[in-house]
């Protein structure tokens, strides 16, 4: 009997073993990354029915988040505003021609974008008693997670810590993973995110970002934690029930 198998096949077990190890490593690493909210959720940026720009409203115009998300300090949810809230500003109505005909800037130059905006058609329709606007939800905790916005704001956690710089987003996207490990990171070290609400508005995202990135944050955060006696819960029943 001569050689039934070619000689190169002697390397097959080694190669196979290496491939198996490599494959396993790849699967693990890929799983570690791709199967987490950091991959699946971060960057989710659906097109909204109304092209509402947080960049313009919260950034350029400097509106406080709570002008629209009115109940965030008293409820578990940060409510999406009713259409009537939009109409607080967007009803500069001309008696004869309808909405916003008068919206011309002070120097008499170009008429406002509202003049031609098709997007506002939906808003007007909704306000006039038509279908409510179907906003697409971006940040969603699973049904078995109960997250109180009000308690977090009260403790001095800014919108920024979970939603990032919304005031710089023309179209809002999912900026942080919001996975459970991510939640626990903060619950274990709240000092990284606590701000002094007597000095800084929680909704002033630019200032908050500066503060949280400043080298003094840990120290001031620890002081705030100590002062308020904060002990963020880490047991299951704090959020899951």
């Amino acid at each position, binding site marked *: 009997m001569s050689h039934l198998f070619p000689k190169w096949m002697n390397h097959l077990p080694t190669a196979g073993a290496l491939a198996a190890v490599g494959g396993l490593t790849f699967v693990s690493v890929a799983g570690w990354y791709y199967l987490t909210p950091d991959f*699946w959720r971060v960057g*989710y940026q*659906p097109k909204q029915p109304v092209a509402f720009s947080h960049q313009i409203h919260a950034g350029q115009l400097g509106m406080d988040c709570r002008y629209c998300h009115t*109940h965030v*300090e*008293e*409820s*578990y*949810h940060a*409510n*999406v*505003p*009713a*259409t*009537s*809230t939009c109409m607080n500003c967007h009803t500069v109505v001309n008696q004869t021609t309808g909405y916003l005909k008068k919206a011309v800037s002070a120097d008499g130059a170009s008429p406002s974008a509202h003049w031609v905006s098709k997007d506002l058609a939906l808003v007007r329709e*909704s*306000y006039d*008693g*038509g279908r*409510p*606007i*179907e*906003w*697409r*939800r971006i940040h*969603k905790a*699973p*049904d*078995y997670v*109960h997250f*109180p916005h*009000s*308690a977090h704001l*009260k*403790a001095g956690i800014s919108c920024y810590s979970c939603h990032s710089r919304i005031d710089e987003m023309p179209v809002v996207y999912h900026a942080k993973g919001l996975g459970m490990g991510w939640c626990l990171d903060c619950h274990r070290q709240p000092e990284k995110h606590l701000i002094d609400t007597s000095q800084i508005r929680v909704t002033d995202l630019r200032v908050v970002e500066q503060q949280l990135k400043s080298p003094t944050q840990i120290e001031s955060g620890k002081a705030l934690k100590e002062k308020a*006696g904060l*002990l963020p*819960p880490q*047991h*299951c*029943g*704090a959020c*899951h*029930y």
Partner: protein
Amino acid sequence: MSQHDQCPSSKKEGKPVSPARAAAEVNAASGKAYWRSLDDLADTPEFRERLEREFPAMASEISEETRRDFLKLMAASLALAGVVAMPACRRTDHKIFAYNRDPENIIPGNFLYYATAMPMPGGGAQGLLAKTVTGRPIKVEGNPLHPNNQGKSDAVAQASVLDLYDPDRSTSVRHAGAVSDWGAFAEFAAQHFKRFDATEGEGLVFLVEKTTSPSRDAVRDRVLRKWPKSRWMPYEAVDNEGGLAGVEAALGGPARVRPNLAKAKVILSLDNDFLGEPGALAEARQFAAGRRVWDREASKSRMNRLYAVESAYTITGGAADHRLKARPSEIPTIAMAIVAATMARLGGGGEVAAAAGAKGKASGEFAKWIEAVAEDLAGAKGEALVTAGRTQPAAVHAAVAALNDALGATNNTVVYLPMGVDEGASSLDSIRGLARVLERGQVDTLVVVGANPVFNAPADLDFAAKFAKAKTTIHLGVWEDETGAASTWHVNRAHYLESWGDVASGDGTISAVQPMIAPIFDGRSDIEFLSVLAGEPDASGYTIVRRTWRDRLGVTDIPAFDRAWRRALHDGVLADSASKPLAAKINSAAVASLVGKWEPAARGASGTLEVVFAPDPRTHDGRHANNGWLQELPHPISKVTWDNPVLVSPSTARKLGLPLEMGDGRARPIAVLLNGRRLETVAWISPGVADDTIVLTLGGGRRKGGRIAEGTGQNTYALRESTAMWTATGAQAPRRLFDDEKEASYHTLLACTQDHHSLDGRPILRDVDLAAWQRFGDEIAKDTDAYGNVRVLNFAERLGDETHLPANRDVYLPEQSHGYETDPETKGKGRDPDSARPPENAQQWGMAIDLTTCTGCGACVTACQAENNIPIVGKAEVWKGREMHWIRVDRYFSGDEENPELSVQPVACVHCENAPCETVCPVNATIHGTEGLNEMAYNRCIGTRYCSNNCPYKVRRFNWFDYASKQFRGGFGQLGEGIPNDLMPRNENFVPPRLRAKVSELRSMQYNPNVTVRYRGVMEKCTYCIQRINRARVETKLQDLKHIPDGFFEVACQQACPTESIVFGDITDKTSRVSALREHGRSYMLLYYLNTRPRTTHMARIRNPNPRLVAEERKRRWEQPFHHEGGHDEEGRGSEHGAPAGGHASLAPGRGDSLLSLPVLASPPADPSRRRALASVISGVLS
């Protein structure tokens, strides 16, 4: 004591400790044998086998036929999965629908409460707060400002919110069986009712349910003014004919009898289930208040005593200190005898006493009882109360009124209030009169409002046939029930949570019924409907109610009226609207003449049975039959769900040839023959029913009215005649025989929960007589056990086996145990709160359940179900032991099987500090929180069920199927659908979820958004309403409070409990109510010896028996309550346990101690110092 008996005397050399036990062994140390069922008492092999299974038979098995179905469907679902899987592999697009215009007050995510009221059948109301979330009512809670509820509610009110979202509700107007609409009906009505204007309503009949609504009375008056010759007939199938007539005769005018139990110290109930009536919250609260034993000194003068005479066990009988079991025909004569005897003792008595004495015969067995009761009543003059039920004839009610007057009860422990015309009308007269005019063809148009006479009219009236003789029939109902289906027009009615109305409660206080939501199916309320008929088509409920109230208040000034109106809407009650008591004057001559004319019912011929009809505590007269929560709520006494079997006593069962063993829930098929009518039904053996008596529960066997109602139970109205509405004689009940064994077993399945979740006879129930409590109640026994550990036992603990066992020692080091167990004296029970506060400074939650005041009504079970999104599972699943209730109310009998005492005990997860479930969970899905809660993370659970296996209290429930989210029909309506393949009908739960319809969108509107809806394969159990705790914590934080103050929130069961038997709070707060209760001498922990250290403590029940009626043996226990018997054989008792019996009670060091399951230590060394050394070695090993 059974397997866990650790007393050395039962472990003598060579004597095996047998795991089998006899009934007498099922002992609490207080010397009583408790049993749940006759099988338990007899300790049949089947019972033992069932006990030893974690879940009842078939719970985790699929029968062969269904398994094949399952595989077929599985294959189909896989095929389907291939088709739909790929496109489904995308992120779900969640939408947010914001309001167009912001409504006032609504904050998404927060609850909004509105005061409203629920009208009760027959009159009266419950004042409620409806909890709404973005415009949907999801739960009702008692209105704290309402005089009847005072913050509490019952099971029927709790379940009423489910009716609002019932997918089987009538959704449209129907004409001649076809779908129509309101416009068509309004047009018809406008034309049709014109004809009566000329004839003044000749031929027009209104058959209306009884209600105490001022607005409906006003509408009635308008209707009768418009058509004076029309007939207005109030009708309820469950009414109190005798009471109405008797009280009217005694007082010379109609009056509502309203007991004031808070003032009564001796109460006698003559077949009156005053604690179990729907909406009887004031009664339950007042009764409990007079019964609560806080400290033994005060209890001497304070605790009330309840006597009950009844034929079948009721909630009231279970709460009674003395219950006399009597046949229905005997009760009136017993009543008369008591009236005569009591009046004689009160001196004189006069004509009523003479007349009653002539009728009342105290035959031998009852004589002693009657004498004792009469003496007790007479001795408590001014603090006594006698009350009679609806089964009693007018003469008894009249005589009782006279007796109450003689006892000084009038306007003291009982008040008489003015009553409306509708409430005072006789239902029997109504339905008989209606049948008569229908028969004569004098009815042109019959309008039925709310009532269901086609189903529940007396059988001898043959009402269904007569109903068809009316030319036009119009029915208003929430469901298209039997009457609706038989009517020309059926109009869908608005639920009370979606309509305007008003109603007066038992004390006369008027509440507005406020809508929480616009009518989902465009239904009309009764007042709107009647107004339309009366030619006021534009009258809305709102304007009708306001008009009535304005007339009533006599306010012409609109702004002033608006202020009063808004205040009334906010408070839920109209201020100062309670009725003023009548100046009741008893007309003795009239009472005596009524009593004289009354003839006691003859006892039926020998060999025949007496019959008593009883409303169902859950479905009442059948009106709640389509409510799954109520159908699945176990009957408070028989513990049967989804059915209303005939109840018979064990001795009657023997006479009828029915085997006593229930096996796995097989009832016995029988036929009941009464006056030539026959009902094929099943019998269930229920200890405590009078001999030769059968109990027919009303409300089952609906033919129309929804998927759940139809075919559930037996229609006992088929045997009820207008001459014998409540009791009858001369019945027979032969066994039904079947050729086919399978058919026989199929017809007899009953889902009874009495043996489910049994603890194998481990004594968890403790009750003791008041005399013993007064003697020993405050004593704390302190000693050192055989191992040198300090043992501190209070009164309740000394009643149990704690006296037999070494002190619990924690196997954890102090630093492992969160710091809240170190001191053996406190045992973590909060006696030393400073040492018990864990380092996190978190509050520690605990609960105390008082068994003295618990009546076992089931309000907590239903409130928990509403709050925590607990699904119903259906009859077939309950039969398998898969019911999902987080709270179970265990019902125990003790004593003689023919005339047992009854005890109840609610058991939910007790939140052990050393929880056995936590140590066995492989995925850490159930773990301990920093506030002492035993938490369930549903999303982690993989369904191994190890935790349930290891739970000694059997309080964990497993989602075998997608009960909550998928359309479910397992076990609904299987009776009468033909013979199935196997014992059980096909269970649609085996259909894979993908192929099953989702639960109706309407149904899911009820879900509490703060509680996860659990999915298949997940374990769940009581969470101490953690959603309420967390919400309260957030709220207190927002208010800058450090801790949640005591009473800031209540858990759902506590909030509902009509007797306030459940108290929840922070056990580290010295001032909290729950701390006080945990320190109380009656407080004990279930299965203390396991050292699980439950956070829920129970409080031993105290009974208050009359010494004259107590056997000598029981009296001996008053002196030595801690003596125990049973468990040890005679020999053992003779030597170590014999004399003195107080040997254990004195806790002499080194007596009767051993360590669990360590046989080497079964007989510890005699020398105490050596023993102590050994103990320290062992505790070293264990830690």
